[in-house]
């Protein structure tokens, strides 16, 4: 009975086969298609596409957005996780749920909400116009949309981590005369630093790939397009658009690969010392 349900070779091969099939269909094949299509017209075409003004501006924009959003969300995530785990207050459970909202709603909705607030016809639109501040179709709007979509990533990983660690060490530090600043940097942060970095990596990956919210907030203004938007722009254009789209997409793919490598290195570094300690 036990053999039949858990060990049967057929079950084993079937399950492994299903997983492999999924990986091939949803991961390996698309990656191959991207690289194939990107290089189909030759290396020269590939690099000249990447050298085009639009491509370069899109890469710059994406990096700039990630560079702004990731620190902001890291700060937010650490503050939120700290507040939730170290203080008792009413509505704490509600706050934790609120933090997760961007995971539940479509990014397009997030984008629309900001458009409703900051757009020309929006609540703050006229006031912003009067003061010459442009949010929609500009860098601030893109940052807002991306930040909205990615803001749970750091906090969500940290909250369970910090809850499981408790605050005994912090209390010990207090009785030893540490002030708030010393407490955080010397005691709390070392305990969570890998969790923070891990959250930053996830946040970064998601920020660079965000399309829905940003497509509403950035529109199709030249110079204000991130890579995913520019990929779509190329895709819709005539004149070898498909190959251009895939060329730029391959850069996005490369950035993801870098992120993935950093993440794996991190996990390895994080796991190996504790594994060593076990022996």
């Amino acid at each position, binding site marked *: 009975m036990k053999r039949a349900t858990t060990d049967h070779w057929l079950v084993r091969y079937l399950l492994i086969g299903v997983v492999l099939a999924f990986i091939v269909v949803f991961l390996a094949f698309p990656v191959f298609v991207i690289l194939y299509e990107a290089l189909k017209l030759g290396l020269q075409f590939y690099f000249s596409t990447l050298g085009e003004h639009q491509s370069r501006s899109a890469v710059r924009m994406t990096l700039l957005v990630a560079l702004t959003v990731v620190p902001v969300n890291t700060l937010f995530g650490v503050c939120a996780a700290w507040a939730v785990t170290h203080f008792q207050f009413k509505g704490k459970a509600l706050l934790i749920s609120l933090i997760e909202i961007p995971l539940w709603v479509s990014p397009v909705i997030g984008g629309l909400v900001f458009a409703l607030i900051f757009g020309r016809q929006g609540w703050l639109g006229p006031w912003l116009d009067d003061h010459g501040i442009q949010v929609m179709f500009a860098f601030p709007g893109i940052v807002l949309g991306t930040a909205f979509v990615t803001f749970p990533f750091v906090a969500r990983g940290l909250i369970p981590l910090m809850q499981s660690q408790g605050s005994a*060490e912090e209390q010990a*530090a*207090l*009785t*030893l*005369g540490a002030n708030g600043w010393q407490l955080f940097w*010397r*005691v709390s942060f070392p305990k969570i630093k890998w969790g923070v970095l891990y959250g930053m990596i996830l946040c970064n990956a998601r920020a660079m790939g965000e399309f829905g919210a940003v497509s509403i907030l950035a529109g199709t203004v030249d110079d204000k397009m991130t890579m995913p938007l520019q990929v779509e722009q190329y895709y819709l254009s005539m004149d070898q658009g498909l190959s251009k789209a895939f060329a730029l997409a391959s850069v996005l793919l490369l950035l993801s690969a870098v992120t993935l490598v950093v993440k794996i290195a991190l996990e390895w570094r994080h796991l190996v010392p504790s594994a060593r300690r076990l022996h």
Partner: protein
Amino acid sequence: MSVAVQNITKSFGAFPALYDVSLEVKTGELLALLGPSGSGKTTLLRIIAGLELPDSGLVSFAGEDVTDKSAYERKAGFVFQHYALFQHMNVFENIAFGLRVLPRRKRPNREAVTKRVGDLLQLIQLEGYEKRLPSQLSGGQRQRVALARALAIEPRVLLLDEPFGALDAKVRKDLRKWLRHFHERTHLTSLFVTHDQDEAFELADRVVVFNQGRIQQIGSPDDLRKNPQNDFVREFLEV
């Protein structure tokens, strides 16, 4: 330095953890707080250290009201029930922590820190263990490191929360003797929590018997044995 609490009351929600508690630890005294599990011993210790705020009542150190001072201003030496060592720091850094967070003008230099930590390691008989992480120590060793860490800042009062609670009988006995010896040498005002009657009677100058957030009786071990004031004390001490 003497430590006094006056009319301390503390509830968690509707649950009264401490009710009108007053006691004084005299300068140089070793006082034991003896009571069953859940009677509020840890809560009282945390209030004295400033880790918890009382609902009402006063805490004073050497006659000075410190009720409104935070834990980091009070700097009571606190040894936690479960040690609470800094897991990512080695033994040396754990003990040196209190010195490293001193304001710059009071902070000792490198040599002085090394010297002080070395002295403490000798005191707790753990020389050569500087580089170990807490996870690489036995329970008794961790307990001693926790003690050394608390002593490093030369606290004016030492608060010990079931310091030997999680240890086996033999180690318990040794550490108990060690603590008695340490106290006889330093006469550091100390308050220690236990639910072990033998421990309290062997170590302490005076014992406070505690139950359900109230003080039942305060007296010397002899006093308690000869004149238990109520049924609880009589039964708890089995006299």
